[in-house]
């Protein structure tokens, strides 16, 4: 197929074919990271701006490293150092970046829809690095990439996503990618964090982890935020861990070969026990490695289209 998008905003709008195409491209780029010389010239002379209006270290680092390995020049802008903190609008910030001839903009923003807002107004390619509770498409892609790499397929897999589904952009991107590729998605957590509307997106809902644990091929544990507890979505991390934490006893009931995943940063003792995070089922560090390959693929594909449009 021919890739035609200058932006990657949401997996909800991609076809299964497009998702597979990114995964295949990422598989090729993964080899680059294993070489002695970890660099290809694909984006040489091009400028990528990491515009992070919401704090993030690992996603920003991953995008930065991906861009460096594609030989792009990278500029990092974070909310505290940018004029956004002085009240400049996102539109004006973006127009300034374009005036400086940025070719690709990677945007992390607390407001859902912010990347689409930029993409509609800029010639530069816009990559969504997480927007509010909407989507985090490269995280969804790297999760699916890891499943496919480890288990050899995505279709027919039973994937449990556990935790704060309501507010999670990672969950949404995972649900879209997995259901489009034919996996079964089971959302697990208290009813306050797993609203029924998700059934209409094509996921199954289960409020008891123990009921479904032995059937799962993959358990993807999402980070639990303390703000949710304060807002009354669940009584406390202790009760949460007892109901939904993947402790050693629960991990013992996992299928042989089942994968334990987590987008990080993990809370040892809350979402999962340390022994499980470091145990044989865990592919948490594979996810980090694969994230780099997936982001190289996305920057390369969208970059090619954005650059062609500029020319």
């Amino acid at each position, binding site marked *: 197929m021919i890739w035609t998008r200058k932006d990657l905003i949401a997996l909800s709008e991609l076809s299964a074919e497009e998702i597979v195409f990114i995964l295949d491209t990422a598989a090729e780029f993964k080899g680059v990271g294993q070489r002695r010389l970890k660099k290809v010239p694909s984006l040489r002379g091009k400028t990528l701006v990491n515009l992070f209006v919401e704090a993030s270290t690992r996603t920003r680092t991953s995008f930065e490293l991906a861009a460096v390995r594609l030989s792009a020049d990278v500029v990092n802008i974070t909310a505290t150092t940018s004029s956004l903190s002085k009240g400049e*609008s996102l539109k004006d910030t973006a127009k300034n970046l374009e005036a400086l001839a940025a070719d690709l903009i990677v945007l992390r923003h607390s407001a859902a*829809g912010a990347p689409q807002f930029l993409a509609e107004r800029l010639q530069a390619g816009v990559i969504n690095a997480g927007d509010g509770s909407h989507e985090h498409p490269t995280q969804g892609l790297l999760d699916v990439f890891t499943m496919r790499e480890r288990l050899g397929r995505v279709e027919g897999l039973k994937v449990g996503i556990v935790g704060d589904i309501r507010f999670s952009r990672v969950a949404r991107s995972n649900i879209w990618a997995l259901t489009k590729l034919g996996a079964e998605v089971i959302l697990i957590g208290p009813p306050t964090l797993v609203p029924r509307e998700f059934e209409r997106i094509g996921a199954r809902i289960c409020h008891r982890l123990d009921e479904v644990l032995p059937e799962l091929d993959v358990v993807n544990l999402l980070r639990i935020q303390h703000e949710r507890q304060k807002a009354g979505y669940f009584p406390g991390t202790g009760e949460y861990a007892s109901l939904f934490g993947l402790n050693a006893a629960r991990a013992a009931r996992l299928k042989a070969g089942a994968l334990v995943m987590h987008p990080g940063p993990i809370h040892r003792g809350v979402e999962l026990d340390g022994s499980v995070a470091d145990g044989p089922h865990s592919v948490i560090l594979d996810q980090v490695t694969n994230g780099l390959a997936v982001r190289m693929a996305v920057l390369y594909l969208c970059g090619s289209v954005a650059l062609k449009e500029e020319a």
Partner: protein
Amino acid sequence: MSHSVNIRGGRIVDPSSGRDETGDVFIADGKFAASPAPGAVEIDVRGLVVCPGFIDMHVHLREPGHGAKETIETGTKAAAAGGFTSVVAMPNTNPVADHPGIIAWMEERAAQFGAVNVFTTGAITVGSQGEQLAPIGAMANAGIVAVTDDGRCVQNHEVMRRAAEYCGLFGLPILDHCQDASTAGAEAMMHEGYWSTVLGLPGWPRMAEEIIVARDALLSEATGTAIHCQHLSAAGSVRILREAQSRGVRLSGEVCPHHIALTDESLAGYDTSFKMNPPLREQSDIDALLEGIADRTIGILATDHAPHAVYEKEVEFAAAPFGIVGLETAVGIFCEILLHRCRVIDLPRLVAMLTINPARLLNLDRGTLAAGAPGDVTILDPQREWTVERETFASKGRNTPFHGWKLRGRAVRTIVGGRTAWHLEA
């Protein structure tokens, strides 16, 4: 300028008297008269409908304090261009209209710059903070026709009960923006449902409106004061309203064009022209609102005209203010949906919902063609086809979700006190 006019040969629809016939309407010195005035302007309106002047009881004119969004001058010009001869201004200005001095200032500005009649409302509570009653009696003397904390909602039920009891002294109705703060949540931006889930935007559930409509039914019943539920959006609100009315409770409701024309699916592109409070809901809610209009549970149509500057709306969705303009599109949307597309009501019913019904609620001497009443007339062409062009708006606001819509039905002339305030270029 002459304030006398003879309006000849139109279909006269005056629900206040039940009149629906072809004939002439006369205005002499600004008031309706039984016979033609000498030297009056002659207007031939054959093929058109002559109605009492339309009243929009829910308008944000933004003055004082927000002149970049709208002024009394531009807002009333927009009203005239939309076929409205009277607007009721909401008090969520800056400063909040919670004091007779501000009311007097607005009345004076309106007399000076208003293209149509402006009726003022005062805040229920000081600063619309929901805590301490505003000087309602003094504002009543200054001319307000209702009290409301619109844009906000009094959360403390005891404060609201006292307000309802106190308003009984002046016969003022309360207009309530029905929004329970705890179930809506401070971050809510759109209807809670499938689309809020997909888009990752915090949801505003139906119950956040319905809880307050139910509260208002209880308070109106207990105090006898008329409480009017503004901009209804949720199916359950209609059921609660219907039940209360069946027991004689003085609870009423209004519907805005967008809540019967659009659903939450419209937000899929994060276009801030679809961001308003209360939010667009689902088809089942539209069905319930239309049913409520059909069986007279909902008796009033209004716009919630809420202009914002372009730069305020052209931002990420979360940062955009709530609200859309409505004055220049409402009559078209109402005709299109209620008369032509869904055929929910007939023309006299539509006219009643824009004239005598709000006039009765607010005790205005308008909404009628009766001799002696102020000579406000809207000439309507219910069949006229036109396309919404936001760049042609008289309002400062361009924040409409209806740009480019093809509609059937439009006001073609707006007459205020016998003087033509606006008419459509042929």
